[in-house]
């Protein structure tokens, strides 16, 4: 068993961290508040091969794994730039298309996801289905050489910066009444697709959307993998999604604790730095321990996924849970350490509250993970 990263993984951390710091949290905040997009940073990350580290070299990727991709997400977040679309475009969509897409589909979509020239969104959540994927109501019906999509999706991230969306649809119903799912790529400019922004209280360049599919036609060539096999295919993308969510949270937590420690070493109130007082030092030390534990679980989950070990699902869920809880506590303590400054824009902590708090809710809620662990890891009966 080995617990140290290779020289190449360490070098990747160093290079991504440098790139992230050259933009920094101020760039992230200014971009978000001005309604801009983090395109400049995204394209630089693509140019240096950081976006596609986990994808095939044949299409311009790095040929490594989700372990390396979570390094990219963590280091950018630790530099104050948590890029949520990393969770979606290369992790979910990239993983699924690489595994189940045909050669032409990979050529068409993977290459530009890797280079950063285009971004792919992912649409699964629906107003009436929530986390129950069997109940998805968006349908795709074959009509000649096309699929025709009808339905509604919501809380779909970054549609305005994406060229296409990987949409989870229902193409049939099994004997138990459960949806047979299929994954279909829909261009964001397809006629009949309308997008409405959902206003959210979160400082981030990525916006959230409600999507209405009103007889949206796409050619059947846009089906990824096998019709009706979507649920199984999804898992190739959903474990990376949880691992990447955890990595973004771990990065934000590191960023917050570094700022808190810097402040506590310098800020003096009664003649000594406030970090001298155990009332300040111990909560930060406690937060640091939990963040390191969450990072360890995230790294283990990524390693298991890359090894194609079936234990990856359980580990990815646990990592996402642990990273959200540890990160929220770390950021909260960092804000507390800063006194009134903790809520200022200048100190760049409260600006991360939205993206950090999001991790307890998305991509899967804390409660759904507890349900999963209760049922799968402890063998307890299911309530649903």
């Amino acid at each position, binding site marked *: 068993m080995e617990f140290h990263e290779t020289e*190449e993984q360490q070098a990747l951390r160093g290079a991504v961290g440098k790139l992230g710091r050259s933009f920094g949290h101020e760039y992230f905040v200014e971009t978000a508040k001005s309604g801009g997009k983090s395109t400049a940073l995204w394209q630089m990350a693509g140019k240096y091969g950081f976006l596609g580290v986990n994808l095939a070299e044949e299409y311009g990727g790095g*040929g*490594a794994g989700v372990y390396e991709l979570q390094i990219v997400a963590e280091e950018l977040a630790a530099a104050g730039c948590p890029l949520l679309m990393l969770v979606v475009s290369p992790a979910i969509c990239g993983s699924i298309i690489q595994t189940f897409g045909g050669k032409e589909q990979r050529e068409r979509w993977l290459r530009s996801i890797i280079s950063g020239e285009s971004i792919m969104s992912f649409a699964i959540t629906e107003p009436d289905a929530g986390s129950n994927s069997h109940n998805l109501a968006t349908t795709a019906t074959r009509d000649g050489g096309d699929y025709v999509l009808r339905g509604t999706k919501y809380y779909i991230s970054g549609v305005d910066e994406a060229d296409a969306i990987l949409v989870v649809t229902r193409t049939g119903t099994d004997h138990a009444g459960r949806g047979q799912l299929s994954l279909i790529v829909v261009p964001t400019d397809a006629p009949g697709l309308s997008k409405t922004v959902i206003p959210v209280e979160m400082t981030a360049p990525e916006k959230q959307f409600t999507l209405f599919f009103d007889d949206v036609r796409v050619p059947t060539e846009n089906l990824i993998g096998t019709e009706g096999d979507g649920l199984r295919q999804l898992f190739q993308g959903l474990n990376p999604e949880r691992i990447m969510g955890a990595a973004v949270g771990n990065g934000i937590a590191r960023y917050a604790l570094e700022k808190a420690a810097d402040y506590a070493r310098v800020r003096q109130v009664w003649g000594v730095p406030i970090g001298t007082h155990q009332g300040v030092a111990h909560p930060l030390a406690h937060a640091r321990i939990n963040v390191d534990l969450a990072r360890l679980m995230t790294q283990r989950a990524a390693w298991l996924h890359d090894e194609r070990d079936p234990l990856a699902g359980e580990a990815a869920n646990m990592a996402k849970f642990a990273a959200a809880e540890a990160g929220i506590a770390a950021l909260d303590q960092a804000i507390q350490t800063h006194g009134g400054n903790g809520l200022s824009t200048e100190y760049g902590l409260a600006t991360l509250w939205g993206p950090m708090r999001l991790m307890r809710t998305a991509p899967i809620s804390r409660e759904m993970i507890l349900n999963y662990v209760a049922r799968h890891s402890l063998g307890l009966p299911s309530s649903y």
Partner: protein
Amino acid sequence: MNVVVCVKQIPDPANPGKLTSETHTIVRDGKLILDDSDAYGVEMALQLVDAAGGGEVTLVSMAPHSETSGLRTALAMGAAKAILVSDDALAGSDALSTAKVLAAAIKRAEPDLVIAATESTDGYTGTTPVQVAEVLGWPSISFAKKVAVADGTVKVDRQTETGYDSVEVSLPALVTVTAGVVEPRYPSFKGIMAAKGKPVEELKVTDLGLEPGQVGAAGARQEVVSVEPAEARKAGEIVVDEGDGYEKIVAFLEQIKVI
């Protein structure tokens, strides 16, 4: 065109540096990293080789404990190979013995041009590169803010206090570059993976035709006798503007004789 870049691997400046108590030399026990100021030289060399349409960039470094971490960073940026001189006999080397070692290693690569930073971020003597040029018997130009090579010559804009000088010398030559001569690239992921397989030739002092007594503490002509901590910077003076702030500023500027 073949270019050698002298790169120094130094203790991470993010951690507080330490000096040995007897010899007052920098402690280099931990992992060493590429001196940031050398990233400019590596980038300049890569661009010159690109512009020449052929050739390669070779790194030359002297470091203890067979350290290659910093070299891997520069190889990941795109350098083709590295020569590392690592030998216990080199401990305590002064600038001149370092220059002798580097010059001997550079000769093996037979470059058209040698590039170095103006000074290292840990030692700050700023004398090693020109001593290398002297040992090699080649012309040198320091403080380059722009470098171009054509027809067997190197043309340099050399930074001065008031502007820059245009200097031209024939190759082979040595040029030291300032931070800002070019914007260094980051190592790409492909570069990082490729660096793993690039050759690093490790040499001892005797491989270079030098005697251990000529280098290291034994051969040093310079000795650090004592070290004083830098004086803490005095607190600045705060001027409260009560409508006469501009007068106080003018008086201050007159006092330090800038107006």
